[in-house]
């Protein structure tokens, strides 16, 4: 479980940092490429540059903090839930359904289930079996809470 957490955390952190250091990166093209039921929503995010800047900011720092959270085991459940929400957005913006074609190249063959969905499911497992309080900084956070309670 901890290893799974580290792997997913590493992936999130690198995705975030890679975007952070690329001055040309913007989610606009990814969003514009969205297809399926929710595509109007994702397209609408690109229309206003302030909204787009906010989306970009939340995405980059969301990825980085989720990645750090998972690796360190800090606020693990919050990070896990946030990761699930973010992946759900990715999945819904580019659902691999029959008949939908994307400009962004895919590195494999997908039908309904893609890697995003599998990573999402893996995070759901981590959510049900949180490991941060076993091995991770959450152990210390929770310990402090407990100690405070005991003092009272």
């Amino acid at each position: 479980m901890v290893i799974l957490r580290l792997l997913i955390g590493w992936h999130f952190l690198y995705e975030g940092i890679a975007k952070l250091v690329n001055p040309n990166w913007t989610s606009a093209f990814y969003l514009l490429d969205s297809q399926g039921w929710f595509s109007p929503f994702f397209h609408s995010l690109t229309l206003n540059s302030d909204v787009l800047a906010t989306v970009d900011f939340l995405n980059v720092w969301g990825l980085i903090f989720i990645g750090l959270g998972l690796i360190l085991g800090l606020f693990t459940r919050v990070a896990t839930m946030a990761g699930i929400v973010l992946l759900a957005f990715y999945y819904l913006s580019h659902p691999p359904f029959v008949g939908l074609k994307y400009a962004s190249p895919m590195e494999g063959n997908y039908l309904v289930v893609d890697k995003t969905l599998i990573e999402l499911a893996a995070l759901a497992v981590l959510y049900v079996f949180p490991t941060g309080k076993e091995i991770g900084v959450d152990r210390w956070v929770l310990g402090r809470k407990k100690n405070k309670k005991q003092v009272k």
Partner: protein
Amino acid sequence: MEMESDNKENSLSGKVHRREWVKTLATVPVLGVFAYAWYRKRRYDRLLKKNIFSELNMSTNPVPAPPPLSEGKTLRLGIIGYGIRGPHLARAAGFAHPAWIDTVRDAAAINPSDTRYQDFLAQDDLNVVVNGVCDIFDTYGELAVEAGANIYREGTGGKMGDAPRRFKNYKELCASPDIDAVIIATPDHWHGPMTIEAARNGKHVYCEKPMTWTVQETYEVVKAVKENGVVFQLGHQGRQTESYIKAREAIEKDLLGKITLIEVTTNRNDPNGAWVYPIHPDAGPDTIDWEQFIGPAPWHEFSLERFFRWRCWWDYSTGLSGDLLTHEYDAMNQILGLGIPRSAVSSGGIYFYKDGRTVPDVLHTVFEYPEKDLTLMYSATLASQRSRGKVIMGHDASMEMGDTLIIKADPASTRYAKQIRKGIIDPSLPIYTYTPGTKQVDAVTSATEQYFAGRGLLYTYRGGKRVDTTHLHIREWIDAIRTGSPTSCHIDAGFEEAMTAHMGTIAYREGRKVYWDPDKQQII
């Protein structure tokens, strides 16, 4: 429960305490490993980029934004021809027909990613007015008047400015004292006579391509423009395309090595692309000044097909050579400074559109530049849109041009041989790509970015704003009139364009190899 017992143990034993900390911070070293891996990757990418860039010596800056709009008095325009290209040019100058505004506004309401309305409103005000319009088809003439009056960029029923005067004849428009400059968007056989008339009246001219319909009038146009000192811009808006400007830099830095072959193409496969334009329901002998349409062309009885689909007949048109080869040629002339070729051969035929047209729908023209040791090959079809690129081939690298610019090293290159052996340069990947709109150029671009760029998705936003190249081209002309700065597609470039196109046409029509005599400045 477990935690509670842990806490108890904590207070009892330092050993347990230590184990507690180990469990808490066990995964922190992973961050260290991450940081190290990331540092290695960054260093590798940087090294790769640095090595390639130092070899290429290309500037990493994007093409600078156009200079601020020139100041000065309001320029008074006349528009001659308001059929298909005319309305686009008028919009590029700031004047849209109210019905067009309605259309794009509605389209934007239905499809938010259709930003034509937004882009038009964001287009700079060039400080010009339309004082006169001229079209020999009444309906187009009236539409031009309504567009010229639309100074507030409103839809139907909106507030309008003063209506420009509608002239029935282009000569009257050219003679009108309240007009400083004219935009000509008429059939090919009228470009020359109208430019000459305007220039003789001291009007500045923006003329659609090709510059002329016959060889002889090409000399007369140059003479009239130069003698009267008017500012001339030929309508090759590709001059404003950012990637072409970068391409020129790549050539100047000799990234491609010795260039011996250039391949340019036209690939269309729809009636509109083959000039089978719709016939307007209001059109007829009563609403069209047929005699004025014919003008310098051989007489023919009234024909709606000939009026609306004039590009299909040599009588009014220059065919593929004048309409589409000129765009490709001008792009190459801009980048390589080719000038007029020494010789031309052409072949082709009417193979698909057997609708009575006289111009070919498949055409290939090969131009030779013996002094430059290179061949320019043009190949066109109007019956297949299989994409064939626009490629400059050099011994060391080839450059594919479109909205983006992609340079790939040749596997057998001499110049890059060492880097290819060392693995710094991979001939299957671009050594240089330029995508307009991004903040910097890049040597190592991800496949995804490439893909998006190729599909044109990257140009929806350029610095947060999409810019129309035709607008930039008109703007450059207007700035030139006000400040005396040069136009990019000036009269000399126009002369080269026209003569090159005529050579291709003559070679096809006469079935012979055609030569250019640079001393006599003549086609022989």
